[in-house]
């Protein structure tokens, strides 16, 4: 076996998300790569949560598969809901105190997990370790790998270690998958949100402000937990409007700043997003999508905010919208976002979704590829004099539209930023000549931004470069598309659009030129990417494969739908 999928299921609060991630880490130590899908509801206790971990020996895995080899059930509900996902020769590992009805003809491993933890006077969440022990035995993964990860995650004194061992020893599985050790180096397991947090930090983030909103909240959690180690600030103001206006104040003062939210929170921020455009204040807004409109479905996934993000904010101003497709790209592109914001003094949106934000994945990250691009920041009188700018103008008209940005606090220098239309000094103006000059100045950055983005790979091509069938998509669908490509044994070219504004029309046109069939894949109902491709690349898509039920595509489902559209 070179690939295995395990489903952990239980009620909210049972700890299934934790188990999914721990298994991914154990498999990583064993030389396997993993992808974890967490399906949970917007409640704290009860309901039904599950995690699917798909692991592959030696090679990356970028999506979870819907069929699984093992189900680890903390309750009866899990078995009832997921027994049909089991492949032939699949195994159910379950808490025999909490589940009694098992399907016929399926291999099972019963563990009296509730009784054991109760006897030890431990909380029910410790059942996970017992079942994980039994699972490792079924998988054929050495107990030692599990013990190492548990010690790292919970400390040397944790009762989890002993329970893991007990589960491993007690279990007498009727089958073993005999997974063999991979040769790949152990890799960290990160969610997209953690990667965003680390990418921003690496690129010099000093202030992160956010109001809690699923699925973006764990960026705030990650940075709040790391802020003392890095001497930075992660803070939660009273609402999203305060968040972004405070962020603009911090950025004006000279701190590299980002904010994070989901669609609804970004809706509240849009007036100040436009202020960032007008005042040319560098800011990164991370928008992690969930199904809308309104409250929508908070803990599920969607790509329904693309048109909104591209058009958010009143008035005309340049913006950059980046859409990483996986956790590794989330790291590098979060760093790009901060660098682009400061280099071009424009608002930058990093557009992700729940599926990318919250799916732990084995990743290989080389932080050496990221540098801090300062842009035209001026920190001292001497720097200004070197630039020949003794009389400082915040909005000086320059060749590339970007003015030197002096930080307030320099002796003899006055820095005036303004929400009103303004002249080069930053003073309010209503003069028609000044107005058009300033609009032109801001918009003149665009061609330079396009050139800059070109060097960062606005479009990536995967699969059969020579194929006359093409799939075009953006964001987290990348994982399922690449896995579907693998499942179908190739047969198409995948054009991944990583920059959505300014749209890389030339690159997309070049890649789609000559394709007989172009299929647009998106996690939404109205296929906004297809419209952008038509508008900017002049290519009409032939088919749309869309999904808008709050769930991400799985490779098997997507492969079937792609085959249908491409053959049809």
């Amino acid at each position, binding site marked *: 076996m070179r690939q295995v999928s395990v489903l952990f299921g239980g009620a909210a609060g049972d700890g299934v998300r934790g188990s999914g991630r721990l298994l991914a880490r154990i498999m*990583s*130590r064993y030389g396997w790569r993993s992808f974890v899908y967490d399906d949970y509801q917007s409640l704290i206790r009860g309901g039904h949560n599950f995690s699917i971990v798909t692991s592959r020996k030696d090679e990356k895995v970028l999506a979870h598969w819907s069929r699984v080899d093992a189900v680890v059930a903390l309750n009866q509900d899990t078995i009832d809901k997921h027994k049909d996902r089991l492949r032939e020769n699949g195994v159910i590992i379950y808490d025999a105190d909490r589940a009694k009805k098992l399907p016929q003809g399926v291999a099972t491993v019963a563990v009296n997990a509730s009784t054991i933890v109760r006897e030890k006077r431990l909380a029910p969440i410790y059942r996970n370790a017992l079942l994980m022990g039994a699972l490792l035995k079924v998988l054929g993964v050495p107990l030692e790998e599990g013990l190492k990860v548990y010690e*790292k995650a919970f400390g040397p004194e944790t009762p989890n270690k002993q329970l893991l061992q007990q589960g491993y020893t007690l279990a007498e599985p009727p089958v073993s998958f005999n997974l063999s050790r991979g040769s790949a180096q152990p890799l*960290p397991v*990160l969610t997209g949100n953690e990667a965003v947090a*680390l990418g921003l*930090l690496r690129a*010099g983030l*000093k*202030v992160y402000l956010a109001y809690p909103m699923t699925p973006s909240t764990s960026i705030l959690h990650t940075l709040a937990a790391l*802020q*003392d*180690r890095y*001497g*930075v*600030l992660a*803070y939660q*103001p*009273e609402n999203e409007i*305060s968040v*972004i*206006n*405070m*962020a*603009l*104040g*911090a*950025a*004006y*003062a*000279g*701190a*590299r*700043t980002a904010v994070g939210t989901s669609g609804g929170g970004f809706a509240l921020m849009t*007036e*100040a997003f436009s*202020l960032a455009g007008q*005042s040319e204040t560098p800011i990164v807004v991370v928008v992690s999508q969930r199904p809308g409109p309104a409250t929508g479905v908070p803990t599920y996934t969607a790509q329904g905010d693309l048109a909104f993000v591209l058009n958010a904010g009143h008035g005309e101003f340049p913006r950059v919208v980046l859409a990483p497709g996986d956790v590794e790209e989330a790291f590098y592109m979060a760093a790009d976002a901060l660098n682009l914001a400061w280099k071009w003094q424009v608002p930058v949106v990093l557009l992700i979704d729940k599926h990318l934000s919250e799916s732990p994945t084995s990743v290989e*990250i080389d932080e050496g590829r*990221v540098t*801090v691009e*300062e842009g035209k*920041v001026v920190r001292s009188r001497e720097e200004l004099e070197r630039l020949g700018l003794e009389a400082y103008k915040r909005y000086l008209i320059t060749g590339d539209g970007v003015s030197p940005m002096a*930080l*307030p*606090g*320099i*002796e*003899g*220098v*006055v*820095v*005036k930023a*303004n*929400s*009103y239309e303004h002249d080069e*000094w*930053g*003073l*309010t103006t209503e003069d028609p000549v000044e107005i058009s000059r300033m609009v032109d100045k801001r918009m003149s950055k665009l061609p330079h931004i396009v050139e800059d983005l070109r060097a960062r790979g606005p479009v990536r091509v995967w699969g059969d470069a020579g194929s006359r069938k093409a799939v075009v998509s953006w964001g987290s669908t990348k994982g399922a598309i690449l896995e579907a490509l693998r499942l179908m044994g190739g047969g198409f070219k995948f054009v991944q659009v990583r920059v959505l504004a300014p749209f890389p029309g030339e690159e997309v046109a070049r890649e789609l030129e000559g394709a007989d069939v172009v299929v647009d894949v998106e996690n939404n109902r109205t296929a906004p990417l297809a419209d952008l491709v038509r508008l900017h690349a002049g290519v009409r898509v032939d088919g749309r494969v869309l999904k808008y039920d709050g769930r991400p595509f799985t490779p098997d489902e997507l492969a079937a739908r792609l085959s249908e559209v491409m053959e049809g």
Partner: protein
Amino acid sequence: MSVVKLKLDTGYKITWCPGCGNFGILAAFKRALQELFDEGRVRPEEIVVVGGIGCHGNIINYINVNSFGALHGRVLPVLQGIKLANPRLRPVGFAGDGDMLDEGISHFIHAAKRNADVTVILHDNHNFALTTSQKTATSPRGFKGRSTPMGNPEEPLNPDVLALTSGATFVARTFARDIGHMTRVFKEAIMHRGFAFVHVLQPCVTWFDTSKYYREAVYKVEGNDTSSLEEALELARRFYVDPGLRLPPRERIPIGVFYRVERPVYSDSFTWVRGPLAGDYSPVSVGKVLEELV
């Protein structure tokens, strides 16, 4: 330290109505700054003024110091962001009554609650003047604006009581026709460590000219116990503006520093932040965190 003489005028043509209370506020603020510079207590480059939207907001164009022209209602978040990023700066906000107490009231309560180390000066003229006069949160009940021609059906908010009960550590009331009083109060507010709120009673000569009303009503308090919240609240509550500005005023209105106490500001808790976050663009390594996630 060397005193840098900065020309405080920008030379920008002032567009306020002749006789507007804002002229007094601008003059007093410039005088307060100049005195603080001359006394060596503040350096010009430390000052950042943030203006909201409304007549008052134009003030950023008239003073030659660092400034940020914010959105309507959002002076306070911008002020606090500036201070978080660079605690060496002294952000001073200018906000209007509609601006800060209608559109942006949540920020006011929260800035006071966390005792953010910023100063905010409220230009309270009891109406939205720039949009040709509509009611605001401080318009008296019965006030006839163009959106309430039959009279404002709501009771006004008392900003000083709100500031005091929300946690502000410096609360003062002053009058836009008394430049000397304003200057003293502004200086104290700027030097206060913590959330300093200054309520300026500002006549709007075009739409709601309180000049005579306030001249008769206002009296200076001195010798009050500024450490007593009860006494401060008592003074703060003495504030009645007649919707028809009938004279003589029904009640007299005290002005002065009502409250001044030392209390930790929220950013004192950020002990791990060493030095300004602004201006530091050195790359950091996240390698160790990645290693921990293996």
